[in-house]
């Protein structure tokens, strides 16, 4: 009885901390629009005049010209991306700026490197009403689409144009792969024949590593989970696979009690399995295993709370997926990756067992499931 009560307290306590942190993060003061614009266009050289909530008029006598400014927002990877568009009187874009975003820096840098904003600004602003006249930057598709959406949003709201929004979920090769991986993961639980099981597991691991890892580079990261907790649901029409992946994994965990994602879907888990096979890795079970586990959970808890407090999901991202699959990460993460890869040769799944924050999240969900289950059994069988 006591143990159940303790578990309830624990689960509810963590949930409370997350809710409070999220509320605090969202309530933090935001700069006013005018203040933001004046930082970009100093009052000494320009004069600003608000037309409506999304449109401004900007003029400068010294430069002998005048412009319009539009502000809008689009749905990014980790939350809204707000965009400022400056056009001349004929509607040709002079510049596009991103005024705020929560994107992972490495993705954001991709846009800068591809001169994406420059490309966007080469097309007259009205062309953005009918769709996406510019191709998204590969490797940062969601972020670049958010910018295009922001331009469309700002211009349409600024000019009071009503736009219909399509809501059909995307369904392509990525969704098929996710469905395949999830279903093989579920199937593996019921297969008894060891040889068949091994073949299915390994083919699933290799497919995950190649497609989810290297080709699409879409493992579940804790920053995405934080974004979902924080109420930023990704766009269904671009990222339906994420709903499948997260929803499918959580539902299987709830109904069968097995963590399919970590076992056979996660591409980084697959990479560690393959490395472990190369070096005949052994399971590492020291006396202080439990303590290491608590350390892993605590670090995840701190990272998620910090991300919620700062209202910036990318803070929580300390995974090394990007470093392995795209070679984009900070130097520390690269060193961590090299250590993890080295350890994986001799220890089975060191990252999953001792470091992975997504693993911690699934452990937490599993804890909720078990606690609720026990509670339910108690009320029914009392």
């Amino acid at each position, binding site marked *: 009885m006591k143990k159940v009560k303790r578990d309830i307290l624990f689960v509810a306590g963590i949930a409370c901390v997350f809710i409070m942190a999220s509320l605090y993060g969202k309530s933090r003061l935001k700069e006013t629009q005018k203040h933001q614009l004046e930082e970009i266009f100093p009052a000494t050289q320009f004069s600003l005049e608000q037309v409506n909530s999304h449109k401004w008029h900007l003029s400068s006598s010294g430069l002998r010209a005048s412009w319009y400014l539009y502000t809008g927002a689009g749905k990014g990877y980790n939350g809204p991306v707000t965009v400022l568009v400056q056009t001349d009187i004929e509607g040709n874009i002079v510049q596009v700026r991103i005024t705020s975003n929560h994107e992972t820096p490495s993705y954001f840098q991709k846009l800068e490197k591809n001169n994406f904003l420059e490309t966007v600004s080469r097309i007259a602003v009205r062309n953005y009403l009918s769709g996406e006249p510019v191709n998204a930057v590969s490797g940062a598709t969601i972020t670049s689409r958010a910018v295009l959406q922001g331009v469309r949003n700002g211009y349409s709201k600024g000019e009071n144009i009503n736009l219909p929004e399509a809501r059909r979920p995307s369904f392509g090769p990525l969704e098929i792969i996710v469905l395949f991986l999830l279903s093989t993961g579920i199937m593996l639980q019921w297969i008894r024949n060891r040889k068949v099981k091994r073949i299915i597991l390994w083919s699933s691991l290799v497919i995950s590593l190649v497609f989810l890892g290297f080709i699409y580079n879409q493992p579940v990261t804790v920053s995405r989970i934080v974004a979902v907790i924080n109420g930023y649901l990704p766009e269904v029409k671009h990222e339906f696979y994420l709903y499948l992946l997260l929803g499918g994994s959580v539902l299987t965990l709830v109904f069968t009690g097995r963590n399919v994602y970590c076992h056979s879907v996660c591409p980084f888990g697959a990479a560690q399995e393959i*490395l472990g096979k*190369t*070096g*005949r890795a052994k399971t590492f079970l020291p006396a202080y295993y439990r303590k290491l586990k608590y350390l892993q959970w605590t670090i995840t808890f701190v990272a998620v709370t910090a991300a919620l407090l700062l209202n910036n999901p990318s803070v929580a991202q300390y995974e090394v997926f990007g470093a392995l699959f795209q*070679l984009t990460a900070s130097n520390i993460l*690269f060193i961590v990756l*090299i250590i993890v*890869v*080295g350890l994986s*040769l001799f220890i089975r799944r060191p990252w999953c067992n001792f470091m992975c924050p997504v693993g911690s999240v699934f452990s937490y969900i599993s804890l909720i499931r078990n606690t609720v289950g026990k509670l339910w059994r108690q009320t029914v069988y009392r």
Partner: protein
Amino acid sequence: MYPNALILGPLFWIIMGVIYTVTVTGFYYWTKDKGIRLNWWKWLLSVLWFTGTNVVIAGAFTLFGENETRAGLYFIGLFGVLFLILGVGLWRILSPR
């Protein structure tokens, strides 16, 4: 600088040749004492692995010398780890089960 200087350059490479010979000889006796039988392709793989490791190190340090420290670190990070994994794999092939 020394590899290009009149006498130090050739001297350097002569010493390097001696060192490589000693390394291969040492490896030969070492495997013999460990009871590892080396056939021709195991020899070939071992030599290729050692040459590759040398090239990786030389490449990384060339980039360091060019003031491209970041590129050098990535170079050794990627290919060094790759050769580490290959080395572990090679060791599995060489070592008797």
